[in-house]
């Protein structure tokens, strides 16, 4: 079953002298439970592609359907709510809310969703234990290492039970040990919850774990390969 359906997705940046086609008519589908890496050199358009996919950057033309909903036909308020309920984000710089504890960061999104307190507390505990930092539930981000912060970010992304998780260079700021451990974690989460993961990455270690690799160059899909990692 397709979670994401993308048709003729195009993004053109108009600078004063030249038109830049950052994404140039991409057509692609992503199925539930995929563990996909979007790769390509700097400036290839992978981040722009991910931003449009995540409802953050409006395409010049084309369609992004998530769970059958054309997200770019929604109003900006509807789109924010849609992101909250359907898309999880993991950023390169973790981007946790610094004044909230690890637990509160995870719980925060469920609070926005209006989930009951008991359910929030239970899921927060479960997720933090699943990402291996159940004992740091009351620690603020500044007291956590980079790897630990990224684990909290993964737990936060999973908290809203999204259709899929977008991770933009999630390992770029981590050392190799933390990277291996995080990838193992995300792979386990993918298997445990059947959550779809889409990464934008340069990291070979991420590519080695991905079961599908989409290579983008000059805004177009150059290669779309599937791998059996089992």
């Amino acid at each position, binding site marked *: 079953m397709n979670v994401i359906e993308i048709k003729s997705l195009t993004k053109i940046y108009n600078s004063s002298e030249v038109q830049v086609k950052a994404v140039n008519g991409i057509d692609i589908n992503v199925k539930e439970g995929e563990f996909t890496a979007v790769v390509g050199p700097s400036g290839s358009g992978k981040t722009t592609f991910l*931003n449009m996919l995540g409802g*953050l950057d409006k395409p010049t033309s084309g369609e992004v359907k998530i769970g059958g909903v054309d997200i770019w036909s929604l109003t900006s308020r509807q789109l*924010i*709510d849609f*992101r909250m309920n359907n898309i999880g984000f993991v950023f390169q710089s973790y*981007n946790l*809310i*610094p*004044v909230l504890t690890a637990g509160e960061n995870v719980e925060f999104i469920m609070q926005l969703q209006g989930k009951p307190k008991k359910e929030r507390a239970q899921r927060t505990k479960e997720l933090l234990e699943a990402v291996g930092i159940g004992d740091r539930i009351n620690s603020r981000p500044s007291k956590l290492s980079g790897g630990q912060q990224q684990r909290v970010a993964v737990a936060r992304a999973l908290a*809203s039970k999204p259709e899929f998780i977008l991770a933009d260079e999630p390992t770029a700021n981590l050392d190799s040990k933390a990277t291996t451990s995080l990838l193992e974690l995300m792979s386990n989460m993918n298997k445990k919850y059947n959550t779809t993961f889409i990464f934008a990455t340069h990291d070979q270690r991420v590519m080695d774990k991905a079961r599908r690799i989409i290579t983008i160059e000059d805004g177009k899909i150059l290669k779309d390969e599937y791998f059996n990692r089992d």
Partner: protein
Amino acid sequence: MLNYVIIAWRNLWRNPRRTLITSASVFFGVFFAIMMTSIQKGSFENMIENMARFYSGYIQIQEKEFMNTPGVNNSFELSPEYKTVINNNQSVTSSTKRVETFALASNGENSYPSFIIGIEPDKEDLKSGLSEHLIKGSYINTNSVNLMVGHVLAENLNIDTGDSLILLGQGYHGVTAAGIYEVQGIFDFPLPALNKQIIYMDIANAQEFASIQNRITSNIIMVESTDNIEEVINELKQVNDKDTNVYTWQELMPELLNLIEGKESSSAMVKTLLFMIIGFGVWATIMMMMHERKRELGVMIAIGFQKSKLLLLVLIESALIGIIGVVSGLIISFPVFYYLFHNPIVVTGKMAETYESMGFEAKIAFSINPEIFYNPAIIVLVIFMAVSLYQVFFIAGLNVVKSLKS
């Protein structure tokens, strides 16, 4: 909502130094604004009270021409209707008759112009505590034929208690008013201008001096508080007496009112400047808070935080800064100025002379009128509302992708 307040509160203390400095600027702004207004209002209230107590009263009934042409020719007899209103109104604390006229006062060698006030000694003392201001001699009794003289006039005329003073003026309808009187007391008023020219005598004595029999030139009414003036005036104006008018202290002392209004305008300018400086300081802080968290705000929108909720969060943050400053300003200033209200600062030396030369009592009086305290709070609220417009535009214009790249 509580969660927003908790997050906002924690956000404030991410940079405690900046929060404290900004709140301190609000605190000092509130404190100094309260101090300036308290001193100014205190001085004016003190001056008004002194003028009302010792001279004009809060309300006066006069013959209708007396205001433009003061003199015994424009005297009147207080009607029984007025007396009924005065006696029945609970807000009236005292009512006393007066005869006011001018005369030349002479000791035989020197003469000075003087302002003679015929009073009901007991009632006047009750109203103004006149006897407490005697520095020499004794207070005159009802039906006394003696005088009490301001100490500056006494010094100018080189007279003392027990000495005789000659008064020469004009009585009712051109009759010569003349007499020789014994000085029974010398007083020192908190209003220096009065010390130079006032002579008090019993009202019957003054009526005889001016040949006006039972007529008076004014009836002075004191009320419990200045807030009661309007109510009493309205009742007095119901009395159908075409020959008299009823005046407030503002109408009786327009120059004092002008002085107060002038001083208040200049003080308002200083306070405006003070609050403008605070306003720009607060604005700078809010700008920094917004810009340095641009990325974080972008992340919050990306993960599902509506802009309206984000705006509420940042507005709570700035409101908390204002509340810390205002509340601490009020908590610290109230006891300070409450103490100073009951214990005014007495000015001495050269400064006291300067005060007196300007017609002020040589003391720094303070006021604790509630508006002194809530006005700065309202101004700070307005400042924060104005600054919050910046936050509204900032959040409304926030581009998530650009914020995430910042």
